[in-house]
């Protein structure tokens, strides 16, 4: 893997592994290379894989930031601002090196489109920056479509034995579009149509419904904050009005905001604002508090759904 270095500013390889041994060997080699270069390093992968890497590194694990991706990156939409840019921005001098594994075998069909879009958007978020992000993919347990998508979202591919190649299908924009999937109206959901004057009322409605559906504690406040951001956005940028719907499905509370706006910036909500910047935190807050965010945007309007575990 010695050529995955600095010939391009941003380096974003996918690693396709088949065994724990391949996983450990390749990730540890990648990190030891960073150690030699003196690069700040972070590893955000699912818990059991964290243990493999730590064991493989032994004493060299010291000084590396380890995060359980199933927690830090539960919502794939917050991985770019919170995990990746969080670490890269804290180390502005020289190259930083990160292992990020956002897609594991337990990811659901509802989560996957947001995961694939996240992998694609990493390329836009880090274009031109001296950052290396290695994304491991479990070739045995993940769906073949997931592996196929990883070849489209990563310019460089590395096999389990360390052979490196250039992806001939790399086209991250295609994955962003493909997973911009329609989110059809849910007929049985509690719904509230709002205009500018109704912003407090729709917020109160959402909190009351979330309570009725079994949400409690701090997460009720998160619903209130997130709904305030999304509905205010409809009023200010989304045609002046919208419809909120809320329901429970498969152990999760789902809250949806539908309006006539169009989201033109694919990185909206994933670009950390400057400390003293006034705007740009609304959608990011939704990504931070939610376990999942799904978005569909097009000529007919925008639908944002956020999910919270009950």
């Amino acid at each position, binding site marked *: 893997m010695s050529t995955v270095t600095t010939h391009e500013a941003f380096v974003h390889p996918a690693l396709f592994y088949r065994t724990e041994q391949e996983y450990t060997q390749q990730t540890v080699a990648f990190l030891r290379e960073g150690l030699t270069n003196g690069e700040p390093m972070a590893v955000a992968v699912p818990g059991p894989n964290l243990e493999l890497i730590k064991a493989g590194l032994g004493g060299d694990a010291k000084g590396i930031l380890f995060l359980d991706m199933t927690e830090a990156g539960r919502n794939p939409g917050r991985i770019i601002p919170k995990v990746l840019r969080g670490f890269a921005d804290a180390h502005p001098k020289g190259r930083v090196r990160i292992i990020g594994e956002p897609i594991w075998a337990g990811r659901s069909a509802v989560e996957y489109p947001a995961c694939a879009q996240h992998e694609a958007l990493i390329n836009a978020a880090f274009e031109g920056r001296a950052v290396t992000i290695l994304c491991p993919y479990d070739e045995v347990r993940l769906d073949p479509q997931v592996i196929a998508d990883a070849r489209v979202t990563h310019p460089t591919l590395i096999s389990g034995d360390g052979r490196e190649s250039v992806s001939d299908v790399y086209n991250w924009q295609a994955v962003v579009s493909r997973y911009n999937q329609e989110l059809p109206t849910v007929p049985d959901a509690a719904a509230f149509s709002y205009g*500018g004057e109704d912003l*407090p009322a729709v917020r109160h409605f959402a909190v009351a419904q979330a309570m009725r559906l079994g949400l409690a504690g701090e997460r009720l406040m998160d619903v209130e904050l997130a709904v305030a951001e999304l509905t205010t956005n409809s009023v200010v940028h989304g045609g002046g009005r919208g419809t909120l719907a809320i329901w429970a499905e498969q152990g999760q509370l789902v809250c949806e905001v539908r309006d006539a706006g169009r989201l033109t910036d694919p990185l909206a909500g994933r670009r950390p604002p400057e400390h003293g910047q006034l705007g740009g*935190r609304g959608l990011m807050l939704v990504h931070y508090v939610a376990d999942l965010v799904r978005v569909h945007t097009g000529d007919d309007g925008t639908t944002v759904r956020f999910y919270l575990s009950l």
Partner: protein
Amino acid sequence: MDAPHVVGGPAPAVPGRAALEVSPLPGRSGIRARGEISALTRPSWEQALSELARQHASVSYVELSDVAFVDVAGVTALAVTAMNLPDGRVVVENPPPQLPRVLEMFWPGLDRIEVAL
């Protein structure tokens, strides 16, 4: 900021309608707010904060026990105001729970703001 001012329509407020009333804090340097801090009341909140910054000397107080809700932009306006002060700090008293939550999310360890519950 000599007299309270109301934004969000004629008083008394229509139920569900947002209003914010801001007045000077008697006996101390700072402001007291009543209502909600959101898109509908933004101009009044930002005006109160710039006045607070203009009169600031070492410690300013923001009393929020009668504020039921504050959104991200409302917390942002407060954080940016505090960061731009030449010195001292802002003590926020009895804020709604969203305020410490949003501060911690976007400005962890901001020592210009002290939250007093």
